[in-house]
């Protein structure tokens, strides 16, 4: 009993930085869960990744102006991310080019600009910080920011939920019947950027996507409806955050990769054992029901 306490609860009881880390994970999980699920459902899994990188130049400008402050870097990152998202959306609307191609173009420009800015005005330590994050160093301001992002995300999802589902499922129908499918898409992209920004303090721009995509893809092997996918993805993200923190404390591992790798483990387990198209269930289901 005391061993379990020692492993699973002790670190959080003893150290406030662990408690903060855990709360940060809770906030991240609440926002990342639904965002990740819709990214997967809209077949934008990789676009999420490019968005994460495009946040960099804005964060760098924020860093140059205000130092290592999450609100400044976050605001800069948000502006950069939204600019890339809107520009790509605009290009795909005005030209025959598809959105993924224009996304890739703008994100590369943005990323290179970001690396350029960071290397001109900062040290490699700062760059490492932006790229990999440090969840154990979140302060009160960052926590409030992350909690606000989670709250905003859930509220906005509640408002656009029906339109988002209609747009994923049958975009032509929605556009014909409402004439404004584009707005939903833009609002959704802004939520993606917002959660990216919230994640990069904790996990860094490189891995913020991890806590979005891995739980969502894992959930796809268990659940079959949008609401259950979201609940499950959020739970997986939260548990990954918790276990990742425990592991990083116990074995002295960097916390960001520990969290994302835990989520990755959940994905692999789901891939093998998930009842909805998991590898084992596919093998076991050679036998079928009577008609």
């Amino acid at each position, binding site marked *: 009993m005391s061993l379990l306490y020692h492993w699973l609860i002790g670190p959080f009881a003893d150290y406030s930085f662990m408690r903060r880390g855990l709360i940060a994970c809770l906030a991240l999980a609440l926002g990342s869960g639904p965002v990740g699920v819709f990214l997967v459902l809209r077949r934008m899994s990789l676009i999420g990744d490019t968005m994460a990188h495009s946040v960099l130049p804005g964060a760098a400008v924020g860093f140059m102006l205000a130092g290592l402050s999450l609100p400044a870097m976050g605001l800069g990152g948000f502006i950069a991310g939204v600019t890339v998202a809107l520009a790509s959306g605009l290009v795909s609307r005005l030209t025959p080019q598809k959105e993924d191609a224009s996304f890739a173009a703008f994100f590369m420009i943005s990323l290179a600009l970001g690396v350029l800015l960071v290397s001109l005005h900062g040290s490699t330590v700062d760059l490492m910080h932006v790229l990999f994050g440090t969840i154990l160093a979140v302060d009160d301001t960052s926590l409030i920011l992350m909690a606000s992002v989670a709250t905003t995300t859930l509220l906005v999802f509640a408002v656009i939920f029906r339109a988002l589902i209609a747009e994923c499922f049958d975009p*032509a129908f929605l556009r*014909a*019947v*409402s*004439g404004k499918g584009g707005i939903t898409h833009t609002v959704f992209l802004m939520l993606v950027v917002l959660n990216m920004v919230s994640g990069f303090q904790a996990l860094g721009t490189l891995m913020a996507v991890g806590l979005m995509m891995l739980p969502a893809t894992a959930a796809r092997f268990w659940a079959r409806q*949008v609401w259950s*996918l979201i609940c499950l993805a959020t739970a997986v993200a939260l548990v990954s955050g918790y276990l990742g923190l425990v592991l990083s404390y116990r074995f002295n591992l960097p916390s960001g990769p520990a969290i994302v790798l835990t989520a990755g483990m959940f994905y692999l387990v789901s891939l093998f054992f998930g009842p909805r198209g998991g590898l084992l269930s596919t093998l076991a289901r050679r036998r079928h029901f009577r008609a």
Partner: protein
Amino acid sequence: MTPIVELNDLTITYERHPAIHHLRGGFSKGSLTAVIGPNGAGKSTLIKAIVGLLAPSAGRLAIHGISPRDIAYLPQMAVIDDSFPISVFDVVLLGHWRRVGAFRAMTAQMCETAQRALWTVGLEGFDDRPFGSLSAGQRQRVLFARVLVADSPLIVLDEPFTAVDTRTTNDLLRLVARWHGEGRTVISVLHDFDQVRRHFPDTLLLAREAIGWGPTAEVLTSENLLKARAMSEAWDIDAEICRGAA
């Protein structure tokens, strides 16, 4: 009488090549019209323009008496994401969109209408099944139930019977006939000439321009069909700039 959909010199282009070229005419209220023509004749383009997905490059398209948002539109099956996790019942409920929009609540009565629509298309008890797990015919039945629920005066169907089995096609054709009987205007893109002759009183034979538009028997002559084929195959790379009505 003003038609419910009026086309006035309607031209729609892709990279300046017209898919619809100076199309003039109207779908009168309560008519049941098949839109037919060779591949690339502009059938789907016309449908998309009517429901507001494509803007005219020149000319005018006017919808009279109803709001464009009140059109019940059945898109081609191919543009629907059938792997999306959505239940049959939720798909049918989408038909209420013009009344509830993105935010208002569905009433118990609306759910009942959706239930009845599922019953009408022969899918009673399918409510909770994932849409993606159904056969092509069953999916089309679900989408027809969504049109039923919309309860719209103008119904626009884009290739509703492509890849659909005969029995389903016959059931759904009966539904189309019922809509016609109820005084609704129905416009449908089709491929099967026999089907058109048997079930559709009016026909628009399209090959970028209207080759014929009127009672089906007068439009679907072998002379017209030949003309339509010849016109749609002639895609002139070096076409000159069009300077007015054809």
